[in-house]
């Protein structure tokens, strides 16, 4: 058996970044409170003492500005990893990311590259209310020129961050605040996981539950509940939104003949809707019924825990959606 270590999602991110930063001095970190304060979610703990102010750059609270500076540095050949304290704050830098970072390579017809990783926690943590709980993964996955990934497991977050750092294109690396403390086993050898490859987290024959990030864990929990009722659900974790591995999704749907797409984002107009429409279009003949969809309520995130629990997608919503279809 290969050696493996139990570790958290957070530690897996750290390990991945340490290994890459040790190998390549062009890689540096930039963001708010990431150095001396070790990061709000402690993802960059240990980096400042090791690499110092040159490679771990604490910024003022100026998202648009430092996103642009990191992009400029990437144009000049450095490889920045930009942390947004939460992805909700990346909204302030959208002009840089969408109008600048994402378009440089195309507008220059390939002569200017922009190797940059934009990472941070996105989605609802707990009671952070309306301005701090956005799921923006779908916004980014809408933009040609960006790659967007959202790992759901300890193994993936490690291996996909490696790929993100090695990529010569801008990558939006979506973490989830509710996954940071999740434990898993990490092989002791170095590896990377290519983008554009979905995976089956649990095999099943009755219905495909399709999701990414935290929702893949929610789908696993839903599959357990469904198993008690004798329903054998397959959990498809897409991992990478852009590029999207439709083949793995379709293969699962062709096997189970039914699918529910699960996401945390607002239900209307989300990336989940995109996956839903792809399955509906391309697997029409294989489906035994309409494709289901479970998303977050179409409301700004409320503060009250009672209301927040109403708004955020959970495994019971998934189970209810499956029951409706079967």
């Amino acid at each position, binding site marked *: 058996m290969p050696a493996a270590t139990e570790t958290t999602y957070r530690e897996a991110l750290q390990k991945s970044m340490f290994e890459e930063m040790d190998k390549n001095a062009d890689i540096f970190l930039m963001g*708010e*409170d990431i150095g*001396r*304060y*070790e990061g*709000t979610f402690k993802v960059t703990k240990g980096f400042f003492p090791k690499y110092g102010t040159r490679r771990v750059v*604490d*910024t*003022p*609270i*100026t998202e*648009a*500005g430092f996103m642009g500076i990191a992009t400029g540095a990437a144009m000049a050949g450095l490889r920045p990893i930009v942390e947004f304290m939460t992805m*909700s*704050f990346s909204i*302030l830098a959208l002009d840089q990311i969408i109008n600048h970072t994402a378009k440089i390579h195309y507008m220059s017809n390939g002569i200017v590259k922009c190797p940059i990783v934009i990472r941070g926690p996105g989605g609802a943590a*707990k*009671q*952070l*209310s*309306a*301005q*701090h709980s956005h799921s923006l993964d779908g916004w980014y996955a809408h933009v040609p020129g960006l790659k967007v990934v959202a790992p759901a497991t300890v193994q993936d977050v490690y291996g996909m961050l490696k790929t993100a750092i090695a990529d010569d294109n801008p990558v939006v690396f979506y973490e989830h605040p509710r996954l940071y403390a999740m434990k898993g086993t990490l092989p002791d050898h170095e590896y990377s996981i290519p983008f554009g490859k979905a995976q089956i987290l649990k095999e099943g024959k009755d219905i495909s539950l399709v999701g990414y990030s935290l929702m893949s864990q929610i789908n696993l929990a839903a599959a357990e509940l469904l198993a008690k009722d004798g329903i054998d659900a397959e959990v498809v974790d897409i991992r990478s939104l852009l590029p999207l591995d439709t083949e793995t999704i379709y293969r699962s749907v062709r096997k189970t003949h039914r699918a529910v797409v699960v996401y945390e984002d607002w*239900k*209307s107009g989300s990336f989940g809707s995109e996956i839903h429409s792809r399955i509906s279009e391309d697997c029409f003949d294989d489906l035994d019924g309409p494709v289901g969809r*479970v*998303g*977050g*309520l*179409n*409301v*700004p995130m*409320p*503060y*009250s*825990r*009672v*209301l927040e629990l*109403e*708004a955020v*997608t959970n495994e019971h*919503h998934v189970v*209810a*959606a499956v029951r409706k279809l079967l």
Partner: protein
Amino acid sequence: MAKQAVKNSTESPAVLEQYYRDMVFLRHFEEKCNLAYRQGKVGGYMHTYIGMEALAVGWLESIKKGYDYVITAYRDHAHALLLGTDPVAVMAELMGRKDGTAGGKGGSMHLFDPERGFYGGWGIVGGHIPLGAGLAFASKYREEDRITLNFMGDGASNQGVVFETLNMAGLWDLPCIFIVENNEFAMGTRLEYHAADPELWKRGIPFDIKSERIDGMDVIQMKNDAQRIVDWVRENQKPYWVEVMTYRYAGHGAADQDRQLYRTKEEEASAWKRDPIKRLEAILLERKILTPETVEAIDAEIIEQVDKIYDAADASPHPDPSEVYDNIYTDMDVEKGH
């Protein structure tokens, strides 16, 4: 320095005692909030005003409450309470209850009370600064003599949108006072690590805005300076940029357990020597406006008052789950369901 302020002060003993009571009330209220957070009755992000009380008291005692406009960031309990927002509603909002200022939808960071001129309560650092200038735009548009107090942190003063707003405020003569609550830290980042020139008071100058730095730890001085500036802005209908020097004794928010990462215990201890409450207390004792006995009695009275606020808030029910859909629009519903 404190004595100096007393000599210059024209406040009556009753007014000085009221400042004292206001500050002690804010202190105990915030400590109760911290307790409620530790008990799990309050969640999410919650930021207290402990150490900064003199600043808010000085400014809010200088305006026409309910007429002038006030806006701030997420460290907002003091502003709402001093404007007269029902403290039970504030505490209930922190607890996410039905009788909270926003029925539990906003929480600690998003208090609103427009009837008293309070327009929030904002969580995106720097994001509300143009909104504050917009309030001033509206009062100017209507040819009223309202002024707007637009509070922000030292960290917030770096956001690009702040400079954009200052330019327009200067260009259009908006009657808005931009107040930087310089408590020396932006979360875990010390002023000198986030500002190229830590003399933040200078930032209004390029926009032809009157600018100055004042002390926010001496409530009497704070009030005198604030009143002078408020009167000037009302009279001249032009903006003002003020850096007020203060300190937050608490962590950044209730979730910040890592103060040692950005400051030492010694630094905190020496900052406590500037405690604005103790400072006024010394003056009141010296002037025999209060005695050690009345100081104790006031403290006990306010603690009891805050206990009652807490109990009343805690008696408020949680919102009904169906309320999740209420008030997204004025006139329509969203599509329901997951």
